[in-house]
């Protein structure tokens, strides 16, 4: 008897949820599925976009895929892969790789690749230093964008200076510069990224062949850096905790007190309090420009926008310092451990040939890895915060002029629609009539907000379209960790033990404890010493939380995700990329986390 082969639904069979057609249509036409898409394979990019996307936030996908494609296809000429196509339906982003399979085309692209990418590898340090300069200037430009205002009359000095351009024009100019800068940032983001991951993959695949049972996390530990930017925010919180004790203001930090209350009490504490606040300013710029997500949603605010996360960690750190504990990252010990691993595995290799290849591969991986670890701070965190906050400022201005009730509503307009509203406002300011947008946007925003709620409650297939025999697109494997085995596990989802969740084995160790399902940064206060953190996305800004918890479980992330790195540093078991831990694990349940095997068991 023929067995029915399990497959994924075709894109054309996925219907827009009833009542959300208007919201679906708000996404640009080039993101909508079309009939020809049924012949291709698509998977849900839950790693970057775990929640339904508001129409504005789709700019994060749009700008990223424009730049990724350009880098792969035209700049470095990756031989076997071009860019990523993307579509959105019911708020979920599906993506598909564009592999190159024609041998002649691959050959041609190999020739180009070796003149382009090889040049980057050969000149990595110089080009990376140059990159930091470029990013620095881009950030400075974004910070220098003017405050948005529409005065009653054009300032007299502008008139007397014969400026000849009215204030309203600054709105359009600032808006377009913001969008332009954001797209430019993504080009910088991908300038080195695939090359960096590629060098890491070469070493990774060698290790997997030479040591078939080596864990992903062990390979990651051999390459991980120690001075990486991702550790700095947490290091700064530790520094501030130490300074609080030195300045004698440590008693002002009381568990459960809000950041605002603590700040007020420090302001009233004379010179010592002021000295600490000055220290805080040094830390904030730039290191608190980390957002509590991965940089793809406007509502993932930064520490600078909301100090509650770093401030929640300070009382714990102070208590540890007072108890004589050394809270500094044991950098030297970690470096010695890394060196011991590199040498130990080298010694276990079977021949001098293998050792020679190993030396070449790890040298390259370690050279390029600082970029892979460091870029996120500048791109997805610092620059993205500036960008979203500028958009937020436009939202505030539009709300002030009656376009919507709340400035945050701006994120329910597409970037094209925001520009329309801005021009509408400019027109109104100029001609003295009320803006047309006063009646237009409120019902649309209400409809789109309702759609997000509808979509968030819907199940979405992890993939759509025809199942490919193999997945060998290096971009897909590197950035999303998706292989043929991943697809099989998706196809058989829900057939295993209902109390068991599988994910990436991110940091080894077995721990049983109470699960705390933390859905947003506002809920971080729920965590008690020894709890197991269960969250959607784990990321470096949560690092201060790791001092409290016994283990970490996340819906999204791979073994190279920042949370996995931080968990390994803290020696905590972690399972990441479980898919639905926050849905399936009840808050307060007793669970077992086996970080070595990537298995989470719900015990009751």
């Amino acid at each position, binding site marked *: 008897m023929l067995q029915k082969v399990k497959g994924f639904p075709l894109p054309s069979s996925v219907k827009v949820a009833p009542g959300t057609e208007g919201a679906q249509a708000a996404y640009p036409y080039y993101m909508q599925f079309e009939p020809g898409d049924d012949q291709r394979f698509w998977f849900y990019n839950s790693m970057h976009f775990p929640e339904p996307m508001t129409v504005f936030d789709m700019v994060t996908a749009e700008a990223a895929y424009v730049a990724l494609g350009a880098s792969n296809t035209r700049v470095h000429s990756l031989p076997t892969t071009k860019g990523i196509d993307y579509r959105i339906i019911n708020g979920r982003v599906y993506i598909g790789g564009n592999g190159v399979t024609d041998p002649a085309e691959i050959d041609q692209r190999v020739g180009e690749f070796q003149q382009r990418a090889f040049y980057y590898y050969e000149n990595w340090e110089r080009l990376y230093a140059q990159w930091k300069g470029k990013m620095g200037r881009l950030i400075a430009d974004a910070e220098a964008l003017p405050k948005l205002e529409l005065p009653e009359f054009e300032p007299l000095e502008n008139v007397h200076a014969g400026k000849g351009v009215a204030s309203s024009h600054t709105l359009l100019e600032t808006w377009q510069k913001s969008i332009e800068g954001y797209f430019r940032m993504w080009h910088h983001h991908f300038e080195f990224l695939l090359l960096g991951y590629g060098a890491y993959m*070469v070493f990774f*695949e060698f290790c997997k062949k*030479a040591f078939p*049972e080596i864990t992903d996390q062990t390979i990651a530990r051999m390459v991980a850096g120690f001075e990486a930017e991702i550790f700095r925010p947490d290091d700064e919180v530790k520094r501030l905790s130490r300074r609080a004790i030195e300045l004698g203001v440590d008693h002002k930090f009381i568990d459960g007190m809000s950041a605002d209350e603590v700040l007020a009490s420090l302001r009233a504490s004379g010179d010592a309090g002021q000295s600490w606040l000055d220290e805080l300013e040094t830390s904030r710029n730039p290191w608190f420009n980390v957002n509590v997500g991965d940089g793809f949603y406007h509502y993932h605010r930064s520490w600078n926008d909301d100090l509650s996360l770093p401030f929640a960690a300070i009382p714990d750190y102070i208590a540890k310092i007072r108890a004589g504990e050394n809270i500094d990252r044991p950098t030297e010990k970690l470096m010695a451990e890394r060196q011991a691993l590199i040498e130990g595995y080298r010694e*276990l290799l079977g021949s001098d040939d293998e050792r020679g290849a190993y030396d070449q591969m790890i040298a390259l991986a370690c050279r390029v890895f600082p970029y892979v670890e460091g870029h996120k701070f500048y791109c997805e965190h610092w620059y993205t915060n500036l960008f979203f906050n500028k958009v937020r400022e436009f939202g505030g201005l539009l709300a002030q002029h009656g376009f919507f009730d709340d400035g945050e509503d701006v994120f329910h307009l597409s970037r094209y629609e925001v520009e329309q509203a801005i021009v509408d406002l400019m027109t109104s300011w100029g001609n003295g009539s009320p803006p047309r947008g006063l009646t237009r946007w409120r019902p649309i925003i209400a409809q789109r907000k309702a759609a997000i709620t509808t979509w968030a409650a819907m199940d979405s297939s992890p993939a759509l379209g025809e199942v490919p025999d193999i997945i060998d697109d290096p971009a897909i494997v590197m950035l999303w960790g998706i292989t043929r085995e991943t697809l099989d596990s998706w196809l058989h989802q829900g057939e295993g033990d209902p109390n068991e969740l599988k994910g990436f084995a991110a940091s*080894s160790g077995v721990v049983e404890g109470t699960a705390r399902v933390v859905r947003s940064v506002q809920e971080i206060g729920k965590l008690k010493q020894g709890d197991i953190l269960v969250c959607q996305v784990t990321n470096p800004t949560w690092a201060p939380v790791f001092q409290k918890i016994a283990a970490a479980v996340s819906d999204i992330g791979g073994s190279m995700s920042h949370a996995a790195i931080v968990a390994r540093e803290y020696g905590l078991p972690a399972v990441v990329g479980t898919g639905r831990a926050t849905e399936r694990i009840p808050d307060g349940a007793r669970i077992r986390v086996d970080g070595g095997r990537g298995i989470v068991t719900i015990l009751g």
Partner: protein
Amino acid sequence: MSAETPVVAWFDAIGLSDRPAVGGKGGSLGELTRAGIAVPPGLVVRTEAFEQFVVALDAAEPLRARIEALDPDDLDAVSAVTAKIRARIEQTSLPAAADAAIRSALAQLAGDGQPVAVRSSATTEDAEDASFAGLQDTYLWVIGADQVVAKVRSCWASLYSVESVCYRRKHGLPEVGVAMGVVIQRMVDARCAGVMFTRSPTTGDRSVITIEGAWGLGSAVVSGEVTPDRWVVAKLTGEIPVRDISDKHIRQVPTPGGGIHDEETPADLRRAACLTDAELQALKDVGRQAERHYGRPQDIEWAIDQDGALLLLQSRPETVWSTKEAAPVAAPQANPLAHLMTVFGGRK
């Protein structure tokens, strides 16, 4: 045997190079002892004692010539002749000097009523081949000097089992030079025991140690009577990526008065892991020590006694993967960047 050649040799006085005089197992236990690895203390009845014993038997009535005259395909003849020879070995007293030397050493090794293991220790490489494995005997929980001496003769007699003799005849091996040492070793009252491989038996990975263990004596694991718990421990990180805890329905325990028997595992232990993580790490460390000492991957038998002490019972070279000629996974490149093409160039 001259007066200067001792009948027995203590473990700390011998090593692998003494194989011709003490057999492979005895030499290996001596080697481990010298390397500072804990093994149950013991000694070897040297091959000269066997040689002297057989020469005396041969003089009384031809023995080796009869074996060499056998046709390995004539099983009836082989059975009849070897049965007779084994009976002669088991019934003939040891020369007085050898007998006294064994009893005296035994008194030093194990006090009154203390159990020992008596294990054959073959001298030929062949005897460690899979084709020869299990052809010699091990006697566990032997109590009292008379019993020990009797088991020494039984080990010697096992050289003349139907299987051993057929093997030698099929390969045309001469009988002169066939010899055996016998290990006499203090018995470990094992809480749990098993085996470990210092490279993966399934993938050949040299960076992991596979440990298998069950409750009671290790003989149940070696003979396959019980499905052992199984762990994979990474050598360098100590991570334990695999933990398969099995239903260990029986365990082998000592019988009062001597010998061993199977018993049902108490219900609360059947599905309980027989090793703690700390014990797994200790096993990993001693496995690495043995592997480093020998310079190649090892196949090890181990036991943990009732007091929690970890002891090795045997360590021999791993044979399955070591004999496979594996091509190097990669070789150095004139331009190191050429490695990148395996990921980017579609070349696997």
